[in-house]
Every structure is written in structure tokens, then in C-alpha cells.
């Protein structure tokens, strides 16, 4: 395990996609210290800004401690290993990752897991806007993997999502799952307004009754067979899954009929 701690309070943003198990895995401590990152517009060696030491444990684990709210792109495109973050972390954490695991005990910035293809991100804290979303201009956002947020999340979470699962225990901002073409978003807290705006396909599961766009049509109350399966598979992440959720009925809203309209918002209506 490699442990990183900021040496100073960062005044300007840091771009540090080299902080990734894929990059660290075949490097010596010395080589790791020399990896280049961007401090504002200056290229600097990682070791100049971070205290780096070797700790006990798995070789493919990176641990970061401290206030890293200005450190961006950590774990970008990672495919393996594990990053543990104790503290706040900046934007683009785990963007386009395809495998491995990221755990945050603190808040995470915008574009968490944007366009990710696989792997797991768990955040115990607040998550910014556009988690699991697509970057501007992209046709597709998250294509696979899992994002678990034990806390609140911002706007446009899961925008343009095609596959994978996002589960949030707290409240979500507006436009959750906007323009999504597949995948599943589970909201245990308060689902913000305009959820599923423009969605073509995919599922938003809510245990709170949201306000619906006028372009979602109530279709039925039923017990979708996949819901217990999905919830059971999410149990291991310590989510607040009640027994009633597994056995309950769900009210189904089809939408967004302004768009293709083959998506659904399922609202738990009790057992």
C-alpha cells in the first residue's frame, strides 16, 4: 500500500490522473515520487506536493489522507486495484475507470465516475454534480460499474447513463438520470425534481414520491421481479434496504414521452 498526504494546502487545482493503481503498480517509490502532476499550470513531481510512503497491506492499494478537494482526476481510467481516500477529494474521481475500487470517506467533487465503464466507487459523504454522467457533447455517460453514495448527490446524476448502477442514500438534485438510455439509479432519500428528463430507456427506482414531469405517465402498480434481485445485490454495500422494499409493490411511470419514452420511474408504494 502506498500512502499519500498533501504537504501543503493547495491554492490552485491539481490534475493528478497519475494517482492510479495502474500507474503505481510497476513503479518504485522513487519513480512514483517523480511522476508528473499539474499544480495549476506548472508541472511538478508528485513527491513535491505529497508526502509519499509505503504502508502495510496490499500492493495495489493507494491511500490518500487530508484535504484533497482541489485534487482532480484521481483514479482516472483505472482498471484495477484500490484507492482509499480519507478526506475530501476533487473533481473527476474515477472518471472513465473500467475496474478496481475507489472508497471515499469524505466529500467528492463533480463528475465522479463520469463515463465509467466498470468497477466500484463508494462515497461516504456528499457527491457533487454529474456523477456517472457523460461529459459535454458525449452521447453516452456511465457505461458500467457501480457508484454508491452514502450521502447526498448533486444535479444531473447519471445523465446520459447507459448501463451500470448508481445508488444514493441521501437526496438527489434536479435532473437525475436525464437523457439516460439504460442502467439503473436507486434513490433511498429524496429524489429531486425532473428525474428522468428526456430519458429514452433505463430505470429510476425511488423510495420517496417525487414530483413527476408532465411527460411521465402512470402505467400500473406491480411487483417487478428484478427489484428484489437488484436490492439483494446491493445489500453488500450497506445500503438502507428494508425488507418491505423487497416485498413491496411499485408504481410505475413511463417516460419520458417527450423523448423515446421507454424508460421508467418506479416508486415504492409499500407492501
Amino acid at each position, binding site marked *: 500500500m502506498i500512502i499519500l498526504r498533501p504537504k501543503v494546502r493547495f491554492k490552485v487545482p491539481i490534475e493528478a490522473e497519475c494517482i492510479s493503481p495502474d500507474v503505481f503498480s510497476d513503479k518504485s517509490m522513487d519513480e512514483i515520487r517523480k511522476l508528473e502532476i499539474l499544480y495549476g499550470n506548472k508541472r511538478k513531481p508528485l513527491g513535491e506536493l505529497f508526502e509519499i510512503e509505503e504502508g502495510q497491506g496490499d500492493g495495489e492499494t493507494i491511500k490518500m489522507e487530508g484535504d484533497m478537494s482541489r485534487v482532480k482526476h484521481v483514479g482516472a481510467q483505472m482498471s484495477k486495484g484500490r484507492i482509499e481516500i480519507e478526506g475530501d477529494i476533487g473533481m473527476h474521481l474515477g472518471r472513465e475507470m473500467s475496474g478496481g475500487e475507489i472508497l471515499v470517506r469524505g466529500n467528492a467533487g*463533480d*463528475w465522479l465516475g463520469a463515463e465509467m465503464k466498470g468497477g466500484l466507487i463508494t462515497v461516504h459523504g456528499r457527491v*457533487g454534480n*454529474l456523477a456517472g454522467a457523460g461529459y459535454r457533447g458525449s452521447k453516452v455517460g456511465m457505461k458500467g460499474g457501480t457508484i454508491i453514495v452514502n450521502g447526498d448527490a*448533486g*444535479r444531473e446524476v447519471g445523465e446520459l447513463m447507459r448501463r451500470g448502477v448508481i445508488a444514493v442514500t441521501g437526496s438527489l*438534485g434536479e435532473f437525475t438520470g436525464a437523457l439516460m438510455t439504460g442502467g439503473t439509479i436507486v434513490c433511498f432519500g429524496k429524489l429531486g425534481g425532473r428525474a428522468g428528463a428526456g430519458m429514452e430507456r433505463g430505470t429510476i427506482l425511488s423510495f420517496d414520491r417525487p414530483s413527476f414531469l408532465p411527460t411521465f405517465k402512470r402505467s400500473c402498480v406491480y411487483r417487478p421481479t428484478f427489484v428484489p434481485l437488484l436490492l439483494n445485490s446491493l445489500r453488500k454495500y450497506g445500503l438502507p434496504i428494508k425488507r418491505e422494499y423487497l416485498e413491496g409493490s411499485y408504481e410505475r411511470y413511463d417516460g419520458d414521452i417527450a423523448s423515446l419514452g421507454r424508460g421508467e420511474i418506479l416508486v415504492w408504494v409499500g407492501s
Partner: protein
Amino acid sequence: MRLLLNTGRTVDQGVSMERGKTSSEYFEKVAVAFIHPDDMKELGIDEGDAVRIETDFGSTVLKCVKGGTEKGTIFVPMGPWANVLTGPNTEGSGMPSLKGLTAEISGTKEKVTTLDDILRMLGG
């Protein structure tokens, strides 16, 4: 009383801006809040009275102008006074919250906030 705040352009704001942003005309045309007559009645204020407006982001005193907006909403022309009330968080969009803000409004005996006051708030 709680009203919905919008900000935006007006001809007067545009013309007076071209006159000069430190001009008294700019102050006259921009340090104002357009309020619906019904809401004015409820607030117990007349045209020309000072009103204090407060949002989640800040608070300022403006001169009331009658009409030019719907009941339940107030309109403040784009400018430094509106800026005290608007929200800088763009929520990942680049666009701050400049329209559709919730504002608390009340009549006041205070003087209308001056440009100098605002510059002081800026720390400039």
C-alpha cells in the same frame, strides 16, 4: 414576505450602463426593484420607498418601482445590486443562479444601498 426574484436586462439599464456605471443615472435605473401593486399594498409601501431584499446569498436595499412584473414576483435589473442577491454556484453548468430565486422582502427606513456599499462588500 416571500417572493420570487428575477433579474434581467431593461432598456434603461442598457442606456444608463452606456452613460457610465458610476453615473447617478445608472444608480437610478439599476438600484431598483419592480414590484406588483398588489404586493406593494401587502407590504405597505409606495413607489419610491426603500425595500430590503434578502436571498440565500445576500441582502440589499433598493428603491421600489411599481409594476413591470407579475404578482408574487419581483424584478431587479441586471447590475451590481442584483448581484448581491444572486447565487454563484453553477452546479456544474457554468451558469450561476440569476433567475427564479426565493427572496424575502420588506419595507425599510434604511437608505438604498450605494455603489460604494457594494464595493465595500466586495472588499475592494
